[in-house]
């Protein structure tokens, strides 16, 4: 399984958010990731590039209604390979995060999830 070339703090932060979103059955867009990780835009998008390059995440455009004229957002969800890889990474580096995810009661909502949730 390919892995990101460098494992950094921002990569772990972004991966953590994406994993949370996946557990909620949804996807997140760039602005949500920036807010949740408190990282700058270029940093977050640099991480998304690396995760996309190794097939850990997949992006899709949101569908806008005919009356909506704003630019489309792009949502990202973690692939099954990405989830497996991120879990290994977090087990090594941030085991507390995984424990919190396991203990979390189902039904919580991640802000910024794609409309409709499941992809």
């Amino acid at each position, binding site marked *: 399984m390919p892995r990101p070339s460098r494992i950094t*703090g921002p990569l772990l932060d972004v991966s953590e958010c994406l994993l949370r979103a996946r557990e909620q059955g949804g996807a997140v*867009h760039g*602005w949500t990731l920036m807010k949740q990780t408190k990282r700058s835009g270029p940093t977050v*998008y*640099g991480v998304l590039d690396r995760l996309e390059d190794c097939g850990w995440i997949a*992006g899709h455009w949101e569908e806008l209604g005919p009356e909506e004229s704003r630019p489309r*957002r*792009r949502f990202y969800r973690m692939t099954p390979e990405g989830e497996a890889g991120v879990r290994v990474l977090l087990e*090594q580096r941030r085991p507390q995060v995984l424990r919190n995810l396991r203990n979390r009661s189902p039904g919580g909502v991640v802000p910024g999830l794609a409309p409709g949730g499941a992809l």
Partner: protein
Amino acid sequence: MWTAILSVLLGLAVNECCEVSPWAAKKIARWSARLRYDDPERAEIRSEELVALIEDRPGKLLKLITALCFAAAALRAWTRRTVAGLYAAIPAVSGDGTIALKKAAIVAAAGTVAFTAALTVETAITRVTAAPPPPPTFSSGGSNSLNYHSVAFVAADGTLTGGAFPEQYASDPNVHVAGLNTPPATASIVIPDVPAAGTYTLSIWYENNLANDGLTEPRDMSLLVNGQFAGPLNFPVTNDWYETNSKVTTTAVQLPSGSSTLAIACHTDDSCHINVWKIELRGADVPRRGPRPAAPPRPSRPVTWPVSL
């Protein structure tokens, strides 16, 4: 009078800037995406995506600031690519040992004033004569024995097989070897110039904490010298997986003279699951050319009794 006019004009200008900011931010975001990415498809995707992100960002001036951050990052990426292109175009080492100052160009490209630095570096690349860096060797001292200094290797620079891979921790400039979890994962290094056969001290900087088998416990691995099992390696638990928590495990190893390959291997009987950072080999008191030959017996002088003085 003039003060009042200036105040009004300034107010209008500020108001206009605030109104223009979102429009300018979107333009800058699109330009940044196209500058940052080589791949036109990804550039187009990111271009639209960043415009949507700017739209989501609250605050007119904040939109502009966010776009400028993207522009600065794109400029750095573009400069890095440009200088790397220059770097690749220059031959690495000429026959007489002359090397180009390529590293300086790359380092300059990483700077924040990358745009102008790229142009400066392009004209500033010169050639200097320098000897190629010497390979790591042992140095000797002492009269009856060779007191070798240490020779150190970053494990990730060695040969990684069987699932071992280089990995970099957050905020840690050093690359570690990870994936030494299951057989036959192995990290090998070649010691190129062992001057004499003998016993050496091998030190391994490693990390061992909660592993993906769910255990936090002392681990063991196998040491191979030139493919032959040379003894177990023991790795007590460290505080974390980060370099600042590395510990050193030390063992004695017998090496022949000349080149040898040392391998830290995960065998079926080993518990494995460690990360390795640095490997150091330190010489002990090793005989210069084998054991010193025994002194020949002194010729005995005939003694006659009684001794007459």
